[in-house]
């Protein structure tokens, strides 16, 4: 048999994509058979375990090193956000949403404000929409950097976390410049954002955008061809698109299974319709594909932030709507109308129509939905938060079954779970 000639064109990308049947077969092959007749050892993993990404506890039944069954237990961080929200006005709920997912807090602020704005039937002014889009993508980069460092640490490379935190620190400094807070931003407001960009923000941001793509390439050089990582990530934790739909697994894990589902494109919000970007889709549905999706998303985020800065229109950052919006602090001190508006909004709350809406946004870890029920009073009658992490924790049961003990940590890390968001 002759060797294939060098000038032969590589097969088209479509033929390399595994079909659903192939993925099912691969999944069945990668999982170990479970012997029902053998003795089962039950181990309690977590809640205080370095690999558990928060206070997550799972009771796991082992047959040797193979997982037979998993019973996830959550609730150690339950703070009753939904109950608390019923006693607060719509404005006062914003800081609570920060604490849902403290790694990507702007994304939670943004989702909540989009939901309330849909309920009211208002829209943020164009400049605010661009600032929101930019801040959301900054969150995505800093969240993925944290995830990447911790995820690679799960596989045993301790130093890598420090490298990722170097860039994440820069993004947190940018947030500090933007709104004064590094972790819990509370920057979004109903009808816009809290304040305009500070002087010199765009210049510093451009600096970050210049070095980020080279740093991402640097990470890829360290990880992409690392034999230890490839051996532990390829064909491990396969979770097909049908599994994702059944267990409501969303975000990068869904896109890694070949589904081009991205709410930024499917149900556009903020300034995303005016921005040119791709949603990253991979087809292998394993831990490695989820890693690839996130790396590509970071590059897309850099592109989105650059477009936001270049195309950002001038104008106000808060809607002119006295019935629903808290005015900017600098106006409150200078104009009597703004002071009255501030007083009414803080003491009385916004005048919201009766009705109910569901609004979901694409946060870094998946689709975050807010269901707001209003009876016409300034406080929500019911606020239900459908967080992606809640369902990702539940999906550990089918994801871990038949896998080896050593892979559990990598698989759990690959879906990116935050327990604050899970327990609410």
């Amino acid at each position, binding site marked *: 048999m002759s060797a294939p000639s060098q000038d032969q064109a590589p097969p088209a990308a479509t033929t390399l994509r595994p079909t659903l049947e192939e993925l099912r077969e691969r999944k069945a092959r990668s999982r170990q058979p479970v012997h029902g007749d053998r003795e089962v050892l039950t181990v309690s993993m977590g809640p205080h375990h370095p690999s558990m990404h928060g206070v997550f506890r799972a009771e796991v039944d082992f047959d040797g090193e193979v997982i037979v069954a998993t019973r996830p237990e*959550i609730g150690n961080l339950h703070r009753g956000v939904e*109950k608390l929200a019923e006693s607060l006005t719509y404005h006062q709920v914003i800081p609570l949403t920060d604490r849902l997912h403290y790694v990507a807090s702007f994304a939670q602020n943004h989702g909540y404000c989009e939901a309330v704005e849909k*309920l009211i039937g208002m829209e943020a002014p164009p400049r605010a929409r661009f600032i929101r889009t930019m801040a959301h993508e900054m969150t995505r980069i800093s969240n993925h950097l944290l995830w990447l460092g911790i995820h690679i640490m799960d596989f045993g490379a301790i130093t890598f976390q420090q490298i990722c935190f170097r860039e994440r620190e820069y993004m947190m400094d940018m947030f500090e410049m933007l709104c004064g807070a590094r972790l819990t931003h509370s920057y979004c407001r109903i009808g816009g954002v809290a304040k305009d960009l500070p002087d010199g923000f765009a210049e510093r941001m451009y600096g970050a955008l210049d070095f980020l793509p080279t740093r991402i390439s640097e990470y890829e050089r360290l990880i992409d061809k690392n034999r230890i990582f490839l051996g532990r990530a390829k064909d491990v934790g396969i979770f097909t698109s049908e599994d994702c739909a059944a267990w*409501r697994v969303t975000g990068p894990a869904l896109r890694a299974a070949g589904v081009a589902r991205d709410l930024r494109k499917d*149900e556009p919000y903020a300034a995303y319709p005016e921005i040119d970007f791709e949603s990253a889709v991979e087809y292998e549905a394993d831990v490695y594909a989820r890693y690839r999706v996130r790396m590509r998303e970071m590059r897309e985020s850099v592109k989105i932030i650059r477009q936001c800065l270049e195309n950002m229109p001038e104008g106000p950052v808060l809607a002119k709507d006295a019935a629903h919006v808290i005015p900017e602090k600098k106006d409150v001190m200078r104009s009597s109308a703004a002071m009255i508006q501030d007083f009414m909004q803080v003491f009385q709350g916004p005048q919201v129509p009766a*009705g109910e809406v569901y609004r979901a946004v694409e946060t870094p870890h998946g689709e975050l*939905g807010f269901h707001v029920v209003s009876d016409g009073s300034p406080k929500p*009658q019911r606020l239900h938060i459908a967080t992606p992490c809640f369902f990702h924790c539940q*999906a550990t049961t089918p994801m871990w079954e038949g896998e080896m003990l050593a892979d559990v940590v990598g698989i759990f890390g690959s879906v990116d779970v935050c327990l604050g968001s899970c327990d609410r």
Partner: protein
Amino acid sequence: MVQANLDELSAALKTVQKELTSKFGKKLLETSTFRGELTLVVAPEDWIAVLTYCRDSETLGFDRLDCLFGNHYPERADQPFEVVANLTSIPNTTRVRIKTRLADGESLPTATGLWPSAGFDERETWEMFGVVFDGHPNLQRLLLISDFQGFPLRKDFPLEGLVGGRIRTDLKGKL
């Protein structure tokens, strides 16, 4: 209650509304629209039938249960509880909301057979509102401690105070 104004629905949602109305007719007790979203109210006995049809129909294709949760309206004397399911179709990018209203103590069949992701949602709804889901594989407390008393998201449950939680009198003087 908000009235149905079918004109504000998108073309895809209009087809969903037409198909469900032609299939279930009078079983859809109420149809309402708000901000371009479609809400349908069904009786508890039709709950699983409607959800199954939404999932299995080729044209509707609601392949994912986005969330399922409860709500409490103490002012409605006969049916104070509501269970809401938000369904999503990934290929059609449409959403629909199916609701049912329950009397105090009335139970609802579980949807875990349709979507396994309903497991946690139904456990949460039970522990927060006391709505029992018949046939649920593991209906236990999820977010709260296992011997918590009461259903905290009911409107008559107080926000503050030593209620619900366990007060360990047996440890007095031992700590």
